[in-house]
């Protein structure tokens, strides 16, 4: 097996650059929105400068879920729709890691929808990025839970008829403590949102509208000014007691966030909700351990099990 080496590796302090972080060449179709998400993510990591070995990128299955192959960090991909509980294991198993999960709208809202809710309500510390293209990309154009009514896919050749989910409401309801929305054509905004999500102490999620040029061209043009769309940023409350501030969005206000999520398409972009006070699952479990150790006076493992067995005589 690979053993620890005597010769020093690249010094631990070497700054992380895009070059270092780049792994394989992405296999996405030319023009796919996911390229821009990847580019922004490199920038996020450049800004964060976490120790290289402590970054983990994981994913489910889908075009978007190929993400980890293109990022040179620990990581990989799991099965379709189940990346979140897997990532919860990573985060809780080693509290020092910085865990990023990537996936698509099908992976996250269809097969994986329930894991989203339960990982989020527990507030496991990790950052989840949903690259929503409103279609199943990898399997070549079936209706996804975010496909709008009327979208013509291979499973709805006459146009989709089922009401799609509202991603922002779903994320807000999940119990996530940081919920933001961005667009793959807005690299700076994406970078900012992912950066804030990464810095959030808890379960943070960013939904990024990322166009599938192959199977749903133009899906998100309504938010792209150069294609005649409107790009509306959420004006966040500054708490400066100014009269304008009263009009601004308070990201701690669930009802306001819910309303915002109900706006007409293409809606607004930015941070919908942020709750900095809820304890993470990581902290809660650490607390259980601390209390248990207090009760057992920090007894060593062997002594603990021996005393348990002694009670069974």
């Amino acid at each position, binding site marked *: 097996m*690979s053993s620890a080496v005597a010769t020093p590796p690249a010094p631990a302090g070497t700054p992380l650059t895009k070059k270092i972080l780049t792994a394989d060449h992405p296999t996405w179709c030319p023009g796919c929105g996911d390229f821009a998400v990847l580019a922004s993510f490199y920038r996020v990591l450049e800004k964060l400068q976490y120790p290289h070995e402590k970054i983990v990128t994981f994913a489910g299955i889908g075009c978007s879920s190929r993400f980890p192959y293109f990022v040179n960090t620990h990581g*990989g991909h799991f099965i379709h729709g189940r990346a979140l509980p897997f990532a919860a294991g990573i985060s809780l198993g*080693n509290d020092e890691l910085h865990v990023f999960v990537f996936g698509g709208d099908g992976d996250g809202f269809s097969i994986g929808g329930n894991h989203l809710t339960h990982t989020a309500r527990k507030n496991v510390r990790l950052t989840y990025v949903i690259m929503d293209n409103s279609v199943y990309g990898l399997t070549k154009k079936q209706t996804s839970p975010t496909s709008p009514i009327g979208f013509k896919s291979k499973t709805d050749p006459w146009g989709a008829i089922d009401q799609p989910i509202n991603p922002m409401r779903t994320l807000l309801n999940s119990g996530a403590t940081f919920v933001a929305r961005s667009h793959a054509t807005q690299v700076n905004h994406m970078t900012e949102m992912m950066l804030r999500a990464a810095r959030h102490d808890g379960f943070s999620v960013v939904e990024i509208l990322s166009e599938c040029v192959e199977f749903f061209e133009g899906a998100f043009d309504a938010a792209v000014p150069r294609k005649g769309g409107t790009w509306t940023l959420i004006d966040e409350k500054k708490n400066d007691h100014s009269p304008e501030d009263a009009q601004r969005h308070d990201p701690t206000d669930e009802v306001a966030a819910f309303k915002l999520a109900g706006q007409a398409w293409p809606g607004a972009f930015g941070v919908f909700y942020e709750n900095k006070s809820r304890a993470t699952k990581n902290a809660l479990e650490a607390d259980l351990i601390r209390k248990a150790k207090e009760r057992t006076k920090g007894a060593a493992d062997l002594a603990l099990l021996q005393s348990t067995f002694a009670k069974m*005589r």
Partner: protein
Amino acid sequence: MVSPNTPETPGGTERSSVAPRSIKDVVIRLAGNSQDGIQAVGGFLARLAGRSEQDVMTYMTIPSTISGGPSIFQVRMGTGDILSAGDRADMLVAFYQHSYDAHVSSLRPGGVLLYDSDHVKPVEEDRRFTSVACPITSATVEALGGTAKDKGKNMFVLGLIARIFDLDVAKLTTLIRERFAGKNEDIVRNALLGFDAGYAWPQNNLRDLFYRFEAIDQAVARSGRPQITLDGNSAIAYGFIAAGVRYGAGYPITPWSSIMETLRTELPKYGGIFVQCEDEIASISTALGFSYTGSVAITGSAGPGLSLKMEALSWATMAEMPIVVVNVQRGGPSTGMPTNVEQSDLMQAIYGSHGDTPRVVLAPKNVEDCFYTAMEAVRIAREYSTPVLLLTDQGLSSRIEAFDEPDLPKLMIDAKVDRSERSADFKPYPLDRVTRHAPAGSRIASGKYPTVTGLEHDELGHPTGSPKLHAQMNAKRREKIKALAATLPAPEHSGEAEGDVLLVTWGSNWGPGREALARVQAAGIKGGHMHIRHVHPLPNGLEAVFARYRRIVVAELNDEGVYGFGQLALMLRARLANPAIVSVCKTDGLTFKVSELVAGIARHIGHAALLESVGTARPSPLAAR
């Protein structure tokens, strides 16, 4: 109030004057409702046996109603190896009429029928047993005084039994005090009052039902360590802890839940975490995430939940991620018979996932072995970077046995996560060596970080569509399991080394199997018994052993299937293509009776006399001589 079958004993006579009769072991069945606390009686007896260097084994049924309802607890205790909970009872304590009606048939001729005469009216004409009418309810109420109602009946019965079998009252009293330690002092007092009343009752009413277990044969080597008394699920949970498992995840289901409940309660003391997830898929996913961080994690369930884990298990094989998955088998298919025992998940354990997924399946033989198998499962998962399934069953899960305390200082594993830096040539999936993942957090000298994946991949974990690599990696995953097989010890094999019949068992059929062999041998038949703990891959070298017997009878608690073979028998036939391999199967939700095994063997080897002998019930050792 003594039944016509027992001689009147004039009150006041000193009972100690009667000498106890010596017996080797006894099977006592307590039949009542689950509220009656009969499990507690069984528990006390089991722990007493443990502290007396005696052997013990229990068996219980769980009512099909949600809470409450008829329930039994059966305990067999005595001197020497107790291998099964006993086909039939030597003593039946019947609390209610329904208890009597349902269970009197389980009593061996000459056995003791002790019934609560406040509730039960036995069939008068039935003279097969020593019937003892005892007003359990009213005597208890009288002993405890008005308020207690009949809550102390179980302790009264414990006292009765203690007197009849001359048990160690000092030890029992200590056990009672320990059990209720921390509870209201009234509770302890009531318990002891009930016990004492029960203990005193025979003295005045049936002096000569008086037995004592044979002295322990000091020649039989004991470890010198004290015995501990626990159930199979607890043994597994503590086995994991001893093996260094600190992380796990699960979702409740009968009869698996108590493993997760124990780990959830215990792990924080050891600095670990057990997560209750939203379902079984999330559970195995979370456990695999834990394993990915460098410490082998565990999950588990029963049948329906295992079915849900099959996709992620396939990932574990492909990604070569270690994990241990417990299946506490119960009656299937589907929701089936959730509180009954069965061994019908073996083929799924081996083959339930899509694709070629070589993996490891272990099955403990008794409660003690639950502990050691749990430890072994973790070791194999770690060493071979593979998923391991641990197949236990509903019978073992709740059965209480006493066994020598494991030698913890020797056994306990301190599983430190290796996050040391990996050398520049590190590959997660080397073709020529077993995978050793570099857990996240480990630096890689090359600066190239590894990918862990469910797609077919090259040595670095990058996805590949290469036909050659797929074939090579499939071979790699298969060969490491074959390498493990080569290291496995020969299965436990007792009796004659050749002969008419080899009885093969797995899982909890070990005990009945051993007793069945003794009976077969007693009938003058040359036979052996092999017990297989490593059910997949099978140990090497079975061909030679099997070849020495005329018939190989594989006994298992599953259906004979469309081809007439149980699941292990099917695998043995597939591997060895030996037509002498035949099956004894049943799926009635109950453990094998020794007599069923003997009958099955007799039928397969065409031994009429043996078959006939099974029909005749042997009298109880308690029978008046």
